[in-house]
């Protein structure tokens, strides 16, 4: 009911088909707040466009990303749409659309770092953001994972990048879209290795039993891919079309 409307939600009279989108509003460039404190980002634009086509009002509800499952299951949000990586484990609990973006888990080091390859990571301290799919990506590469001195889980990527700068961390494994966003802000300070920890797909998630919503979402997403709307948004944020067809 109305009582549950998120504070960030628009106050307009809600149409019968309001969809609450849960997102981490501290996750540039997928979703974050601009200087006017308005929600912006690639996923935000994508979700808005989808909402328009669905004839539904999209309400964005910032959530703590660590609590995303609880938010979804307690029906406080209907959709998770914020660079959500599709994994086997998550598929058991969440219903996913087909992938809309391919993402690589890249390795970021400082510009002066002698590290060149994954093999160089042996005996090094490597950071990831806690709760991110980077953890699973690294662990999947068992050989490399074992060779590490330590895999440190940071509260957020910025802290990890700062620690990288401070020299206590040797490398950071991070979503490409995110990593590129940050390295672009400090040109010449960071370097991305050629090797990576594999690719993965971003999808939009709903509750397991919410098949009706999933069907409509999937249909709309496909439309957007086909008529170039998605590509336009991608170009706006990443300078090129990286939408996965």
């Amino acid at each position, binding site marked *: 009911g109305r*009582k*549950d*409307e*998120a*504070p960030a939600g628009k106050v307009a009279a809600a149409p019968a088909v309001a969809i609450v989108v849960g997102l*981490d*509003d*501290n*996750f*540039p460039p997928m979703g*974050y*707040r*601009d*200087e*006017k*404190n308005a929600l912006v980002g690639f996923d935000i634009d994508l979700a808005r466009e989808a909402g328009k086509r669905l004839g539904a009002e999209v309400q964005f*509800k*910032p*959530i*703590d990303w*660590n*609590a995303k499952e*609880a938010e979804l299951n*307690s029906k406080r949000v209907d959709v998770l749409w914020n660079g959500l990586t599709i994994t086997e484990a998550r598929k058991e609990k969440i219903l996913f659309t087909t992938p809309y973006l391919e993402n690589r888990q890249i390795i970021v080091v400082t510009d002066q770092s002698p590290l060149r390859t994954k093999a160089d990571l042996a005996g090094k301290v490597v950071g990831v953001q806690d709760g991110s799919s980077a953890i699973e990506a690294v662990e999947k590469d068992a050989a490399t994972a074992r060779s590490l001195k330590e895999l440190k889980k940071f509260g*957020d*990527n*910025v802290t990890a*990048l*700062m620690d990288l700068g401070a020299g206590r961390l040797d490398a950071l494994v991070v979503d490409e879209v995110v990593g590129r966003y*940050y390295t672009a*802000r*400090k040109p010449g300070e960071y370097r991305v290795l050629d090797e990576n920890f594999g690719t993965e797909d971003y999808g939009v998630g709903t509750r397991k039993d919410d098949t009706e919503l999933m069907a409509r979402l999937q249909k709309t997403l496909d439309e957007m891919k086909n008529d170039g709307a998605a590509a336009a948004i991608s170009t706006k944020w990443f300078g090129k079309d990286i939408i996965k067809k």
Partner: protein
Amino acid sequence: MDYLIRIMGPLIEGTGVTLQVFLISFVFAVPLGLVLALVRISRFAVPRALVNGYIWLMRGTPLMLQMLFIYFALPFVPVIGVRLPDFPAAIVAFVLNYAAYFAEIFRAGIQSIDRGQYEGARVLGLSYPQTMRRIVLPQVFKRILPPLSNETITLVKDTSLIYVLAMNDLLRAARGIVQRDFTTMPFVVAAAFYLAMTLVLTLGFQHLEKRYAVYDG
């Protein structure tokens, strides 16, 4: 400088949230704490034991977990189960948690009042509630100001825990900008804001202490 002005907006908004959560929690937690303290020193064994357990539970578990519980798990608890939106859920958690700390402060304060004050009131015919309201509590307030000030300052900063419910308090707003712009300047500004709030509180408590200092003992 220009940048500072540009990030001020969200930080001031965050400060608003922080102050709201702080003020509302404080206003409800203090009286609740007082009631708990009164039960804890009452002669009713069962309520007393319940309050003891309550205080142990509330002081013994992290506030963050309490907040998550109230937000996510409470709806599934039979009878008292209720689905609260984020802001009320946070307030309820803060009030329940801080009431426990305040209760301990009040209890220590009440127990430090001399027995003679009760007897003095009793022989004049004051009932127990009258004695508490008119004689004991006014003296307690004076004595507990220092620990109350400690706990209140902690509350201001604890409000930042509402980030687990994704509400944008001052600290989270600052973090948001840090993440976006990859600079730690917003943290410095946030620290200054916190210092300012603490200063106001400290001065307020000092003022109260001075006002109460007209009498000794």
